[in-house]
């Protein structure tokens, strides 16, 4: 599922709604950040500023939390995010070759977004489906038992 990047006004409204629904206690910070990440695609400076005001938390704290957790991004991401499991069980099951193929097909290194903004390629830590490794997630679709020759076909499914 691709996310549309909403800018400026929209972000402030999203933040306001989230704080209203979750409350403004510090313990709600991470759930709120997760929702912003999901709706906007990443956590922008605008969002951090608005959140800081609404929750009375210093923006430096919010920034330190947002950059600590892997699933939260402070950089814009592509329309489709590919997360490839880089952990040992997938690696041992043939993950290395799949990873090489992915990087080659997309022309991207780990963490990069393509010029046309279509793809972001990142590695993820263990997703807990090691029985079917190698594993990768594109947006919210999980692919298991991936082999290098399957990669081009899988990528073709996404606009």
């Amino acid at each position, binding site marked *: 599922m691709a996310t549309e990047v909403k800018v400026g006004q929209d972000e402030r409204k999203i933040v306001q709604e989230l704080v209203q629904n979750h409350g403004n*206690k*510090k*313990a*709600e*910070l*991470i*759930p709120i*950040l*997760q929702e912003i990440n999901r709706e906007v695609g990443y956590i922008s400076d605008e969002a951090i500023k608005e959140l800081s005001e609404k929750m009375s938390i210093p923006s430096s*704290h919010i920034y*330190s*939390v947002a950059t*600590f*957790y*892997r*699933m*939260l991004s402070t950089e814009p991401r592509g329309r489709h995010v590919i997360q490839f*499991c*880089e*952990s*040992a*069980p*997938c*690696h*041992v*099951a043939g993950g290395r*070759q799949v990873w*090489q*193929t992915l990087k*080659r097909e997309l022309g991207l290194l780990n963490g990069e977004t393509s010029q046309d903004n279509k793809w972001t390629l990142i590695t*993820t*830590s*263990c*997703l*807990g*489906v*090691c*029985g*079917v*490794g190698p594993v990768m997630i594109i947006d919210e679709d999980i692919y*298991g038992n991936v082999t*290098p020759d399957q990669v081009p076909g899988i990528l073709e499914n996404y606009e």
Partner: protein
Amino acid sequence: MTYYRSHILVSVDPQSIAKGAYEIMDALQDELVKQGLIDEVQVLETSRIGDPELVGTDLMVYPESVHYVNLTLEDIPLLVEEHFLKGRVAQQFVLEEEEFVDEEMSAPQKKEIRVVLKNVGEIDTFNIEDYIARDGYMALGKVLTEMTPEETIQTVLDSGLRGRGGAGFPTGLKWKFIRNAEGNQKFMICNADEGDPGAFANRRVLEGDPHSVIEGMIIGAYAAGSSQGYVYCRAEYPIAVRTLNTAIEQARNFGLLGEDILGSGFSFDLEVRMGAGAFVCGEETALMASIEGKRGEPRPRPPFPAQKGLWEEPSNINNVETYSNIPQIIRNGAEWFASMGYKKSTGTKTFSMAGDVKNTGLIEVPFGITLREIIYDVGGGIKDDKKFKAVQTGGPMGGCLPEAYLDLPMDYEALAEAGSILGSGGLVVMDEGTCMVDIARFFMEFTQEESCGKCTPCRIGTRRILEILTRICNGKGKPEDIPLLRHLCEQINENSLCGLGKGAPNPVKSTLEHFLNEYEAHIYDKTCPAKVCRALIRFEIIDGICTGCTLCARNCPVDAISGERRKTHIIDPDICIKCGICEQLCPYDAIEIK
């Protein structure tokens, strides 16, 4: 009043009805009347028993507990005759075990004893009544009506249950500490941040039997004197989050959570909090920081969470699997649990097998079983019947154990003595095609990435180790690297603030000890014996076998292969990126890795 000798429960959920469940019921009634059995056998409706996709219209017969599936109208007379007149199970209509295809969990293998995994895959997760039907919440009822908190704690102590998250601390003792602690409010926390690569037992329990965890937590809360609990579940497990939330809501509706549980006067409620992608949040103090809305950074102990935990209040943290054992311990008794296992490790443990083993997936076995039995008897041996090389136990903080340790009985103490840990129960099996230096580097990469950065030995020490290992794998190793690695391992282990740092050197330490020859080959001979490290291997086409079919040249992504049709081809080592595609494709096995 009529006493029936048998009950038939016909599954009448929407999908079964669409497949003709009501017609089946009518046919059953008619046949029973015809055979004069209508006063002896009662036909009832029930909710979903099996997955309608797999079992069609199905029914259960009690007291024998036989599950008949995929029934058609024509089958009914035969079924009634066989089962109720002749008193025999009508085998042709019974569900066969093999039909259930689950890549992560097979039907129980020999040597398995499923306690925590008992209900997983066998009940409807989204229906609390299924759990209750299997004695669910009976333990809670017993505890609230017949036992004091102190008696509850004593039972758990007597069972010998130890923390299944890896540390192995006696659970009863933990509960005793928090019971005796002073604070405004006490918290029960469940650590569902299963981050160990290769471990997914917690995930399956949360997705397949969440109520066992919830019931365990409520019982613990009663024992501890706690009124509020949290399940901290990693965000990478969205299904588990969903099953947990549904289960909690259903438990509330049934009066099993919330105010005045089962009319006992005891109140306790539960909430799910999600992680956001940080392995270190599996560490208990980091976990609590995360719940509080901060960076997941551990802090020194003492004070321990039982004294000052979440928001400085007494808190008890246990793993998913630990809580999941509690209901059965209460129901079946401490002696039952303690009768299984080995020495000081009582009960069973789940193990997740991954890597080069034939049957990857989840198993649950009593402590004391050997590694050899797990890998060969339950795991089916090495994939493609290759040779076993090593097994890494307990997650990224565990050591790699070679063949000499295969007869090690699995328990907390034995593994620690061997230089590894039991940890979460993850087992990564490696065959002869694995380079142990590369594996050590690989685990260090993971730990380096996940280090929270707070303390110097871990933050900088793991980076230095990673740099050295990377150099070695690239053919730039130096003799002084080995003593330096040993020194770093010692320093990081002794001076790190939390378990992540302390355990981070274990893969390196254990591979240095058991596979020193591989390190030496990389450093002195600049070769990789397992032919994995790309900088140290060469792909070569064998003259005499190559037929010049050009398949490799056409598929080489960097055009490193040249040659004429029907003549031996050649790979240019300067262009070759060692992706391995040519070697995989060659129909004549003419390409060798040197």
